[in-house]
């Protein structure tokens, strides 16, 4: 494992938010590009062995990204991001949802509200992600829907790193 910056991860039960903070050793314009350009986004958005496949992406207020998380067996979980606020190289917000491959939203699953902030600090860029859920049990469902199988492998591999990282 490389000497990577660690993710600062917390759950705020009172506000039903998941907060993620991470420092990147890159200029803000590059980090911003990696979040808003589909070719770049698809390279990192899905944690291995899953792959991100963007079918369409219109990064503007009122625009939508339609993408799939593709599993190792070829299974697809489709999702959308509807962009609601964009301040270039500073912040963007979107509403996510699960859907089918045509972007028809799965109604029985609540959407969550994403806020992504970018701050330049010297030669690095700090990214803050806040995901607001209607309730935290949604999170468990998200794991079950998309990631459970894919992560079992990497979990075992990486578990040791976090053994000391108790709450």
């Amino acid at each position, binding site marked *: 494992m490389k000497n990577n910056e660690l*993710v600062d*991860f917390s*759950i705020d039960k009172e506000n039903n938010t998941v907060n993620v903070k991470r420092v*990147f050793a890159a200029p803000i314009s590059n980090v911003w590009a990696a979040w808003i350009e589909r070719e770049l986004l698809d390279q990192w958005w899905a*944690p291995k062995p899953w792959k991100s496949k963007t079918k369409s992406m219109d990064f503007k207020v009122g625009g939508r990204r339609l993408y799939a998380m593709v599993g190792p067996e070829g299974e697809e979980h489709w999702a959308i991001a509807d962009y609601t606020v964009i301040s270039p190289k500073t912040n963007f917000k979107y509403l996510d949802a699960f859907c089918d491959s045509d972007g028809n939203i799965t109604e029985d699953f609540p959407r969550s509200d994403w806020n992504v902030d970018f701050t330049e600090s010297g030669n690095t860029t700090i990214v803050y992600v806040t995901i607001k859920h209607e309730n*935290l049990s949604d999170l468990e469902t998200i794991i079950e829907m998309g990631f459970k199988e894919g992560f079992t492998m990497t*979990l075992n591999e990486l578990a040791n790193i976090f053994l000391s990282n108790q709450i």
Partner: protein
Amino acid sequence: MRRDVFQAIADPSRRAIIGLIALQAMTPNALAEHFDTSRQAISKHLKILTECQIVKQDPQGREIYYKLETAKMKEIDEWLEQFRQIWENRFNELDQVLLTIKTIEK
């Protein structure tokens, strides 16, 4: 009243209490000495933690000690760990992508 475990860790004081009793079982009075808040406030947190099944009462003579339910904590930790993993993996990939962007710009 049944509560879910995330209520236990939502509050900074409760996280501090968990941290203390993880080291050794403690009475509410002993716990209160570590905080600026009242003994009543500590009792309220302990009540919530008990309802979340994070801590368990352990009467010893006239005193009631509170001790950690380690199985429950492990459950939370494993659950949170999955999320942290998702973001760790994802952002490690992003690091690689950012390296390629740098190369492109040179």
